[in-house]
């Protein structure tokens, strides 16, 4: 049989993967959840000399990764993250996978438990083309990143950039960096108000770390909201969310 090359020529990787790779410090311990065919992991192992591991739910992806010499297991982000001890990694990466998970909140909590930093990327459901399709055509949006019709889509929990930022805040997860990308892969400037980024960005990459405990707002209405499982930021918080939730870069 052919002796296969473990090292692929360093081909350019997808723009969002490149942004993720740039966030990872060389030589660190990395877990890539939903690593697919291993393009990012391969890049990190060979260009950044990381100690890289992967989890992939599709058997073909796992086989492709291991065949190329990557340490990847067949597993499910919704079930297998609690196998890992706390602080097992320096970075854990969840690239375009969050919206596929059954319990994104639990997954996010696990990410910042098992790793110092979490890098999460997802397609933005607040993107104007998505809103446009739903608003004017009255149909479930099908875009470049939400490319399946509603009945076959694995995206059971799509969210907008604002939704994600709010969830992080509610969970006490610190957003260290946020990079929003337009359809052409241009970074949206950090000066742009979050609400506008949420409209312009087709996708976003977040660098997260463990933050403070979730902030609780007092008051009867806030308590009622908490009991109902909804977040109640309060008026001042809502203003800050609109204008100042974005971290400084």
């Amino acid at each position: 049989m052919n002796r296969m090359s473990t090292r692929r020529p360093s081909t350019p990787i997808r723009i969002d993967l490149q942004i993720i790779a740039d966030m990872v410090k060389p030589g660190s311990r990395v877990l890539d959840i939903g690593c697919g065919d291993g393009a990012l992991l391969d890049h990190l192992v060979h260009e950044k000399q990381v100690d890289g591991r992967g989890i992939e739910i599709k058997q073909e992806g796992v086989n492709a990764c291991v065949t190329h010499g990557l340490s990847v297991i067949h597993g499910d982000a919704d079930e297998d993250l609690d196998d890992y001890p706390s602080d097992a990694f320096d970075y854990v990466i969840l690239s375009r996978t969050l919206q596929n998970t059954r319990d994104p909140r639990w997954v996010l909590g696990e990410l910042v438990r098992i790793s110092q930093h979490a890098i999460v990327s997802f397609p933005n459901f607040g993107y104007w083309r998505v809103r446009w399709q739903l608003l004017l055509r009255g149909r479930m949006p099908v875009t470049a990143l939400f490319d399946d019709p509603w009945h076959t889509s694995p995206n059971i929990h799509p969210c907008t950039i604002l939704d994600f930022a709010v969830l992080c805040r509610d969970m006490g997860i610190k957003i260290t960096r946020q990079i929003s990308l337009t359809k052409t892969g241009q970074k949206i400037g950090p000066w742009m108000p979050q609400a506008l980024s949420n409209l312009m960005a087709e996708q976003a990459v977040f660098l997260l770390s463990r933050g403070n405990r979730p902030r609780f707002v007092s008051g009867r209405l806030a308590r009622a909201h908490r009991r109902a499982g909804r977040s109640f930021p309060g008026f001042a918080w809502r203003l800050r969310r609109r204008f100042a939730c974005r971290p400084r870069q």
Partner: protein
Amino acid sequence: MSAVSTDAPKITWPAELPGHRLTFDASQPMRLDSGAEVGPFTIAYQTHGTLNAERSNAILICHALTGDQYVIGQHPVTGKPGWWQFMVGPGKPIDTDRYFVISSNVLGGCLGTTGPKDVNPATGCPYGTSFPVITIADMVRAQKLLIDHLGIEKLFCVTGGSMGAMQALQWAASYPERVFAAVPIAGAARHSAQNIAFHEVGRQAIMADPDWCEGDYLIEGKNPRRGLAVARMAAHITYLSETALHRKFGRNLQDRQKVTYGFDADFEVESYLRHQGSTFVERFDANSYLYITRAMDYFDLAVEFGGALPNAFRGSKVRYCLISFTGDWLFPTSESRAIVQALNAVAANVSFVEIKSDKGHDAFLLDEPEFAKTLNGFLNGCAEHRGLARR
């Protein structure tokens, strides 16, 4: 009609088996898990390829229950090709042009390494059932003596299927500093109740054969052929899958147009099993079968590490690759997954692949392209990290 004739009572072992021998005399006995000591004893082994100057390219292949050290080349007893000819050889996934391959007969075996059919120097008679009960850890201890003897500080890889997987796990757990990578294939960290049950059926079949003579059949000049054949037939079913059996035989009749209303081998599958049984007794010692199945039954890696499997791998730098097969119901994927979970719990470096195959447990012995690609890829990746030269 009996499935196996009793005409030829003794196995005629070749006078001199090919391969190397390492003998430890009575002054260097090996202490076993049971507390007993075995010695003097011999380890029979084969090597292929060349050990590099750094002694860093050695792969130890551990064989399964009825396997042996003859992984490739013609088998000295059966004349058939070695059991892993698809996987090992020049240009194969375990490339003998690149790696130095070592395979030894396990302690308690019957192809050169000391086992129950060998003569006990204390009595001048074959050990029979007076041979001490051995464990997987004992087998690995003997292999470590061999690796020490060969002057290999760190094995590049330990691999094996089924019982070989148990040995690979035991190696990585007992001597993590001596192993760079471990590839347990179609294995488990402990033998399940169902598997113990199957082994017990086999052992009872052997012991129920009057020719077993309470284990002293060699002294009596007999051989429990029927018992061993039945044990093999029962075990062989567990190595296949319902799909594989049906595809191969269905309800086809053996050389006849209709059933004979008797207990002759009417069906092809019966004839096949009888053949499997009768050829097996030509190459295997019944007492070895008892001892080795017992060693597998006793295997539970967690026990020696305080009952928690992750402890067996804590702090381990070994790179693991676990491989299971979808159609394997003897060592199902769930067993490999349990090991993966334990390895994840200590953040060990682990790969895990489940290969689609409906060929049952025996799939690891067969030419499964996806399996070969996976093993090859994993070894290539490890070789890169180990700094082994590409050939």
